[in-house]
């Protein structure tokens, strides 16, 4: 290799070996007059906001909220980028590796343990920002905490509930479930419907939230303990998992995913009309009923309790304008914004906006399925009382893939459930 190119290579390699400290992708267009503590005219600031793609209509709505920030704080401009949801976190990883994470970082409560390190705890900032905890659903706030610190402000809150096909229940002559129904009632309904229709009544799933919520409702088994450690081999979990897999292998009332890549199997099969019951999030309470060609009913999971999860907006650690970022976030999750989101079908994190949500649901769906919005309200309120925020581990993304790969062996009966849990625990624990 020529000398010039050799030197060039060494220079580049040496330069890259030094950790980069370029800060996050935000810029100031006018330097602040005087010092930072003057409290005088605020500097003009452009903040990057990363939020997963919400579809064209959804993106427009959130962009509208971003523009609203500028109306309330003329010195702050928010620039929204919308990577595809499936890859948002992949991209985030590489952005973090290069210290290029967006100032306003959207985060799921499910993934918070993995990313909390990269986010700035908000507690101090919130104290001087006019934050009033009583305006918010407590579960929504708690879900975005990690080790006691608040890392993001929520825009919604969801629990896992049980959706069922009203028409199928009617045809099979089974009484519709009520919130708080038991596992025995669930199994009886499943058995009758399976016999009458010849098709399995329940759809199993690999979706972490959905599946583990169903197990939790069975006997309060939890996959991850308070300290963030994976606890799959613990007694209650083994019992619950054996029951869950037994629905397909022993009792034959449940439809099993076709492969380990069919993560949201049960939920999809339900909407397609192939199974009569499935666990799914309350975030789909509007879309499931809209998309399905049959009458959808919704109630709590069989048993007691469920997991809750949500998403919110936080501040990346390398953001240069943390105070401004919080101001922006407060507008995006402000009362007006929450009303907009609620009307669009997202169950809001601010308690005041929930009426708008149910009203919107009623307008949209009560004509198709009478009483749907009332049923939705009962299901959501019934499940929220016993809902626990879903805790995950720091390597949760990878763990969910291991879970799908191993669990399918248990679902199809090729491997003992206990051994399956042990395998996953060993690989991912």
């Amino acid at each position: 290799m020529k000398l010039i190119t050799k030197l060039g290579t060494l220079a580049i390699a040496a330069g890259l070996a030094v950790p980069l400290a370029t800060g996050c992708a935000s810029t100031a267009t006018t330097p602040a007059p005087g010092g930072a503590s003057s409290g005088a005219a605020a500097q003009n600031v452009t903040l990057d906001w990363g939020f997963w793609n919400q579809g064209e209509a959804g993106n427009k709505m959130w962009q509208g909220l971003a523009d609203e920030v500028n109306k309330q704080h003329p010195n702050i401009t928010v620039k929204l980028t919308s990577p595809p949801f499936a890859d948002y976190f992949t991209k985030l990883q590489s952005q973090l590796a290069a210290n290029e994470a967006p100032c306003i970082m959207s985060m799921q409560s499910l993934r918070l343990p993995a990313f909390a390190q990269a986010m700035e705890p908000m507690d101090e900032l919130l104290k001087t920002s006019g934050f009033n905890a009583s305006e918010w659903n407590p579960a929504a706030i708690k879900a975005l905490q990690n080790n006691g610190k608040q890392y993001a402000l929520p825009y919604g809150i969801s629990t896992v509930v049980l959706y069922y096909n009203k028409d199928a229940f009617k045809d099979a002559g089974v009484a519709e479930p009520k919130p708080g129904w038991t596992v025995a009632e669930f199994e009886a309904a499943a058995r009758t419907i399976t016999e009458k229709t010849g098709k399995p009544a329940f759809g199993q799933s690999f979706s972490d939230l959905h599946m583990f919520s169903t197990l939790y409702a069975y006997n309060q088994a939890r996959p991850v303990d308070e300290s963030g450690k994976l606890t799959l081999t613990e007694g209650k979990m083994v019992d619950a998992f054996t029951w869950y897999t037994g629905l397909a292998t022993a009792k034959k009332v449940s439809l099993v995913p076709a492969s380990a890549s069919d993560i949201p199997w049960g939920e999809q099969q339900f909407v397609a009309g192939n199974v009569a019951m499935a666990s799914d999030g309350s975030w789909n309470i509007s879309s499931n009923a809209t998309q399905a060609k049959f009458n959808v009913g919704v109630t709590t999971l069989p048993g007691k309790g469920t997991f809750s999860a949500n998403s919110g907006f936080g501040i990346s650690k390398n953001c240069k304008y943390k105070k401004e970022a919080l101001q922006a976030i407060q507008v995006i999750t402000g009362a007006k914004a929450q009303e907009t989101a609620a009307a669009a079908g997202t169950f809001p994190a601010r308690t005041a906006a929930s009426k708008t949500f149910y009203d919107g649901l009623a307008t949209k769906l009560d004509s198709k399925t009478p009483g749907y919005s009332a049923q939705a309200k009962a299901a959501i309120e019934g499940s929220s009382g016993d809902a626990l925020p879903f805790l995950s581990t720091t390597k949760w993304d990878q763990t969910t893939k291991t879970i799908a790969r191993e669990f399918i062996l248990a679902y199809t009966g090729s491997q003992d459930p206990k051994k399956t849990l042990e395998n996953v625990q060993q690989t991912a624990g």
Partner: protein
Amino acid sequence: MARKRSEGPAALGFLVPSVVGLTIFVMVPTILAIATSLFDWPTFGDVEFAGLKNYRRLFARGSTFPAALRNTIVFTLVIVPLNLVLTLGLAFWVATSRWRRFYRVLFFVPVVTPTVATSIIWKMIYQPGGILDDLLSRVGFTMPNLLGTGNTALMAVVVVVIWNGLGYNTLIFSAAIDQLPDDVIAAARIDGASGWRQLWHVKIPLLTPAIFFATTITMIHAFQVFAQPYVMTAGGPGTATVTVVMDVYQTAFQGGALGAASAPAMVLFALILVVTAVQWLGQRKWVHYE
């Protein structure tokens, strides 16, 4: 073939754009990637020198790497010969047809279709209750859950990978066949060679440069199969369809551990290099150049 003066300096001139680009955009990231494998490099947090720890962890209990390596090798051993035989055969067959241009494009369509779409469609075809199941049950045959059973998952994915890539080698061989020198073939026919003999003793030897190229490239790609198993089976059931590149991707982007992800990539790299080098050295024995 002695040259009066070495054509080295001229070669350098022609190679400048390639070498400059290669150095900046290939060598630098490559060296960095190799170096990364010796470090504990989490996405955020401190980078620490780890020596061979990442490599040792590959073979620790609970690691998916041994299964991934085994699957990757199986993939390659099955895909490469099958692909070559099928594409060569298809290319010769298409060459006899009046509509060969149409067929070339038709067989090429899966190559240009986004992998996401083809993997989803094949998943639907393979699904219990799907089209394949439906057809086979009409003939009285119950199909097992192909993607959900350990024994069949790998082969089911192999079918899709081969189907996806068939068109490309077919195109290359078709082009090569179309350009087989008429005079040599005519001479062979005069000598009495026709049909299979002509194929085996005349045409195929003339095609060996193309075959060599296709073998090398197909092999390098087979070692790096990732998208189809990822979308169709996510590596399951169990570890039946995990591949090395899948392992790399998941460790890097879902486990947030770049150093740990580079180690299996380096092992794969070494493997491919050795196999290709062996092929390369054996070139002289069976490839007929000008």
